[in-house]
């Protein structure tokens, strides 16, 4: 490595630090007492270092307020959606990629055209449908619409297409049925793709705002993302700045941890998600 490289790293560290500042600030404010924050947010180093320090904002979240409940809702909805999307996407993706059947090309086209339909263009009719069914304010109302988005099918189909044919043919020659091949041969091979899809779906579910805003009107069914939106408009007066920031940190913790642990998959998932809908 030459000198130019070290200068480059040094030069990039400055924007990288600036990029990180808003996040550091949120974390730092969450560890400062509310009465101090009501006077000034820049006690130490413009507020970037939490002195005076307190952890009571986090304690307060768990002793009263609905944050723990919203967090739990988010966990249930995100895991439910992830499992649901994995189930329908792996099966449909396998059928479209590896099996022959009548109208295959037509069905594949119909499925993939759905990639063009943005959530924002269908949330009104979805709202009226779910209202007709009496389904709003429930977990399945929050989960089901995303299961219909064909991005997962597309992803799994691409993956299954790349697996060599002879693996399946060997099993066929031994007389193994298609469903067993799917379950015992193909699914184990598909783990990396399933991981990517699972992370993509989990991130989407955790961070989704518009559909929960429309569908969940009762606070008991808020996800953490929605709940955080509901307390941030009047943060300074009612809840205390430090406590709202602590909610923000708690709301971000799962996705940030997911990102730091499975960075490669997260980046891959967001690239696929970003580039295909």
């Amino acid at each position, binding site marked *: 490595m030459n000198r130019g*490289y070290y200068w480059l*790293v040094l030069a990039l560290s400055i*924007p990288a630090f600036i*990029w990180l*500042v*808003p*996040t550091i*600030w949120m974390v730092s404010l969450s560890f400062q007492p509310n009465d101090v924050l009501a006077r000034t*947010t*820049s006690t130490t180093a*413009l*507020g970037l270092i939490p002195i005076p320090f307190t952890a009571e904002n986090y304690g307060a979240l768990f002793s009263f307020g609905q944050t723990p409940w919203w967090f739990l809702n988010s966990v249930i909805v995100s895991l439910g959606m992830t499992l649901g999307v994995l189930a329908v996407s792996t099966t449909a993706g*396998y*059928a479209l990629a590896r*099996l*022959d*059947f009548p109208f295959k090309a037509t*069905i594949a086209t119909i499925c993939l055209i*759905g*990639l*063009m*339909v943005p*959530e*924002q*263009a*269908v*949330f*009104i*009719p979805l*709202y*009226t*449908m779910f209202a007709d069914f009496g389904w709003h304010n429930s977990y399945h109302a929050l989960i*089901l*619409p995303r299961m*219909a988005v*064909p991005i997962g*099918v597309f992803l799994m189909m691409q993956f299954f297409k790349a697996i060599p044919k002879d693996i399946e043919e060997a099993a*066929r*020659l*031994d*007389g193994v*049925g*298609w*469903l067993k091949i799917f379950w015992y041969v193909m699914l184990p091979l598909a783990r990396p793709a399933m991981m990517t899809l699972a992370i993509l779906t989990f991130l989407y579910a*955790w*961070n989704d*705002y518009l559909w929960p805003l*429309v569908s969940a009107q009762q606070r008991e069914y808020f996800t953490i*993302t929605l709940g955080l*939106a509901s307390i*941030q408009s009047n*943060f300074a007066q009612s809840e205390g700045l430090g406590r709202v920031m602590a909610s*923000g940190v708690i*709301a*971000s913790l799962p996705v*940030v941890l997911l*990102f730091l642990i499975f960075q490669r998959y997260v980046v891959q998932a*967001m690239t696929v998600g*970003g*580039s295909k809908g």
Partner: protein
Amino acid sequence: MANTDPDAGAARAGRKSYLSQSQAAFLLLLPFLAVYALFLVYPFFRGFWISLHDWNLLAVAFNPDAKEFVGLRNYERVMWGRNIEWAAFASPLLQGVGLLGMVAAAVLRYRGRISRATAVALATGSALLFLLPGFHPGEDGRWYDRRFWPTVGNTVLFVGLTVPGVTLTALILAAAMNRETRAMSVLRTLFFLSQVLSVTVVTLIWQIMFSPRQGLIANITEAFGGTPINWLTDEQFAMTAIVIATIWWSLGIAMILFLAGLQDISKDLYEAAALDNATGARAFWHITLPNLKRTITLVVILQIILHFQVFGQSHLMTQGGPNDTTQVLVRYIYQTGFRDSELGRASAMAVFLFVIMGGFSVLQFLVGREKE
């Protein structure tokens, strides 16, 4: 190759395969097709259906017959007005840019500098930019919906500021960080981190960052003896503020896509260029940019689709204000539907949104399929 047919093999093996290939396929497809038909295809068409009705959310909820078929009236009420005229210079700046874009598309294509899909995209976009702002109410005329087109304009402005901002920043950072070293990998992680946060966390952070009383930006301004700006409540700065927050939030994907594109450029090209003394900025200009053209086009289209659907930043940071300067299309749809209960009009706007997004999706598909 008849003797390697897997179905025949299974039959020869003498064991019964319970399902034929088609039966297995339909069984595996069924769960997805069911949710797809019910929760995407049907709502999609139902959206059109609603847009053709005078459909009050509350009235129809109590009495399903309370809707009235009005044909295309909702589209007229949203997009049209009384005595609407068209002129080539109603909005000189936008139309001028549109005209220039059309000329540029023709010239660049003629010289072979851009691909056909890119040329068509540029030309179509420019033509729309030339045509649409030309409509304006004539004498005694007015738009039926005074807020719709300004809202579309705000959305376009938001996209027009965010997309170049993200693209340029991401491109420069990606080019600088395109090395497989430990330090670069840490730096990439830092830049990407904000991307995984939810929109409500992003708006929470930036609302307070921009706060004139408690904000970090105000704190810094005051430390240098300046007067803090009311970012979110000043008409001059509100849009800039949500654009800054959005660039901070969504830089990561663009950066990662550029890094992936950079990986595909052969190292030999840079080595050859280095022999000609082209390194650093010159190598970036003469090698990186030309070889990254297709990736850049894709990233730009993708971001247009993504950011045209902006909602949370406007809804939570500025509530569309001050004075509607940050009101965006999806928020207007949401308000028309759920605050004003006018689902028919809201659906007409949603169809408008879909048509625009659909156009860009087709474009994305065409460019994506193109050979380098």
